[in-house]
């Protein structure tokens, strides 16, 4: 009888059930989409912040002082220590390899540009553009094109194995060089594939594949410094502590949190004779920006959850209020308060489950669309969230119906049946 009551109610009052179900579905859709966006927004914004540039710098441990002014290196470039290019893939072999979005080695060398019978001393910067690097079986592409996205080239990017070079924008204007020119650098005939604009010191330099710079310097495998771009966690009190003064468990926690400091520490362990440090301008500020945006989206998500809970409650309250005469009839036929309430709660639970399932799917699709259109990447919902969302949907539906059901069962059947309040 109980099951039949519920079944018939759904069968005969399709329009009403559809309305309440639509409200629950929409509420769950919004809640699911916002929860998915909120849990993923940190990672997404972190990746966007990586466009401001590398946040870690690896240099040789016993490096001499840089004497660099306005993009011109005043120290003989063969001076000082170097890192070994062969060690670089190990950056992707550290514990935090999934957090490291890319790296680019740099090797500045002095070159003589021969042009119209005159020679001019310039700085040539060797680097990776989009180099295929392999570590074990893993292959990945890294270089300035991904970690310095503000570098713009008119013309073509050189290939990492080619003998093509880029001229900095100001240098090109000064020498009236353009893409396609042939130049002679320190006795080597080279091809200018494009003009590079960075807004920084590179605008006065020549940028070339790393192998070419090493050949000019006469030191195969030499790298002066490596810029590493890593997804890091905002710094807190633990991050700033000195790892040497930590006890075992605190040290483990520090080591296993992706703070800029701990990633730098592990880079230093991975690359022999190196010194890794956070670039404070980037690393310090991105933590602050990230915390702000995450906090903001969290609050907005709370507002969305609140609004959807309210919408579900309002729809349920209205739906039950309209069925007072039905309650009156049931009570007149001898149904107890408990029996009437349980029919309504069973209906509410059924509606919440169906609405919750549909809403979860729709919310997942919505989050996916938001991720695609705003961040050009996927936002996926962990399926683990489904039972949680369903439980919340049932709870909110019950809470929304409770007051209306209580009023309905309290009503005297005589008044209810006569249609009076």
């Amino acid at each position, binding site marked *: 009888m109980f099951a039949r009551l519920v079944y018939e109610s759904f069968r005969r009052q399709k329009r009403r059930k559809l309305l309440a179900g639509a*409200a629950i579905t929409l*509420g769950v859709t*919004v809640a699911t989409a*916002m929860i998915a*966006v909120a849990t993923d*927004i940190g990672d997404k*914004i972190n990746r*966007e*912040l990586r*466009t*401001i*540039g590398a946040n870690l*710098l690896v240099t040789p441990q016993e490096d001499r*002082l*840089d*004497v660099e*002014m*306005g993009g011109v290196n*005043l120290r003989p470039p063969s001076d000082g220590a170097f890192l070994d290019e062969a060690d670089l893939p190990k950056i992707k072999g550290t514990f935090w390899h999934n957090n490291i979005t890319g790296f680019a080695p740099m090797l500045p060398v002095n070159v003589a540009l021969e042009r119209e019978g005159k020679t001019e001393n310039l700085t040539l910067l060797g680097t990776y553009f989009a180099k295929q690097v392999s570590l074990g079986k893993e292959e990945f592409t890294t270089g300035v094109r991904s970690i*310095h996205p*503000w570098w713009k080239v008119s013309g073509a990017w050189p290939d990492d194995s080619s003998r093509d070079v880029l001229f900095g924008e100001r240098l090109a204007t000064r020498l009236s060089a353009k893409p396609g020119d042939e130049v002679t650098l320190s006795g080597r005939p080279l091809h200018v594939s494009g003009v590079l*604009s*960075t*807004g*920084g010191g590179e605008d006065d330099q020549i940028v070339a594949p790393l192998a070419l710079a090493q050949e000019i310097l006469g030191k195969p495998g030499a790298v002066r410094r490596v810029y590493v771009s890593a997804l890091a966690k905002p710094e807190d009190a633990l991050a700033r502590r000195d790892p040497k003064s930590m006890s075992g468990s605190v040290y483990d926690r520090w080591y296993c949190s992706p703070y800029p400091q701990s990633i730098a520490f592990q880079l230093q362990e991975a690359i022999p004779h190196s010194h890794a440090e*956070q*670039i*404070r*301008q*980037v690393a*310090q*500020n991105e933590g*602050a*920006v990230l915390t*702000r*945006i995450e*906090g*903001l*989206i969290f*609050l*907005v*998500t709370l*507002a*969305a959850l609140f*609004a*959807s809970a*309210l*919408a579900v409650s*309002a*729809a349920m*309250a*209205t739906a039950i*209020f*309209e069925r007072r005469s039905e309650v009156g009839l049931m009570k007149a036929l001898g149904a107890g308060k408990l029996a009437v309430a349980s029919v309504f709660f069973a209906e509410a639970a059924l509606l919440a489950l169906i609405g919750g399932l549909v809403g979860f799917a729709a919310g997942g699709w919505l989050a996916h669309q*938001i991720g695609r*259109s*705003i*961040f050009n990447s996927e936002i996926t919902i962990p399926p683990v969230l489904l039972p949680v969302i369903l439980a919340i949907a049932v709870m909110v539906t019950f809470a929304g119906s409770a007051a209306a059901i209580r009023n309905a069962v309290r009503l005297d059947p005589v008044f209810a049946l*006569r*249609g009076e309040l």
Partner: protein
Amino acid sequence: MKATGFHFERPHSGQPHSAREVAASRAQSPHTSMFLRMLLRAALLRRGRAASALLAMVVAAAVATVVLNLYVDVQAKLQREFRNYGANLILVGRDGASLPAGAVSRVESALGGRGLVAPFALVVARTSDGQPIVVAGTDFNRVRQLDRWWSVSNWPSARQQALIGVRAVSVVSPKNQPFDLSFQGHTIHLTSAGTVQTGAAEDSRVYLSLPDFVSWTAVQPSTIEVAAAGSPEEITAIMHQLEQAIPAADVRPVRQILEGEARVLGKTRSTLLAAAALIILTAALCVLSTLMGWVFDRRRDFAIMKTLGASDRLLNGFFAGEAAALGATGAVIGFVLGIGIAAWIGRVSFHAPVVPRFSVLPFVLAGSIVVTLLSAILPISLLQRVQPAVILRGE
């Protein structure tokens, strides 16, 4: 004019022509007050239902106000966060030349308080054992504000004190002893005030105060770093103003910072906009279902009025007027509440008050009234198709 029963329509201006119009014009004033009385009594007598409808409206308007306020405000707030990244414009003397005297004050007056400025002068000097080192002169008070990420153990306060980059310490003053630097035959005697660590080029330099630096090297600042505040368009305008203020300098945007900022800001705003649209949609739905229930619930009032001879127009006007009044009241209360919540959120998440944006009010008000009108007219148009007798019999 076809009039059936009650007729509340205002008569045409000028003289009444027919007897019916005369009657209508005579009846006008008591009917207007009757209209208001009905509105008022409807709200007072069904306090519970009216209050729940109003509550739904208030909450929806408050939530809408909060998200709209945050959306409008987030750009200004995040732009301020991004100014902590330091300079987004750099003025450099053409071909490495020094900037003219008084350049800093000219830049500041061109900025008019919309940003921070710090001058830098650079030379390569030699330590007492002949090692080359880059020495910079700057204004420490300005650098402290502009480059907040500098980790400095102790800022210099007296003359002839230097701030030494952490990697330069071992070269110039390994035991924290006083040291000499020479440039083109001139020597300066310095003591170390503290160290600076940034993880970048600053770590291998020595920083002096500008007066010390100029009297030692006679080199004037060649670079001014500017952290200009504002939207991308405002920053472009500032660039042009600076170019005009100091023709001898190149004004270069720091693309790394500007582009990163624009990307992060744009994405955050789009996410907030999507969230705001979803939230407002949900809130509107909540109001719609509550109000529709309320109006539907009063179908007996509707039937009685209709039986007594009220025209469809009057009934529409009555329920629509009621709904609009509810919408407007709810929107205003909700707006005030929402502004309060937005201010609280601003304090919690940005440590700065969110300025109440009254520009949001018209949108909230108009949106509320549209939603309430819609939720009144939908059930009424359904009821109009039904005979009053059927409704009164409770079927």
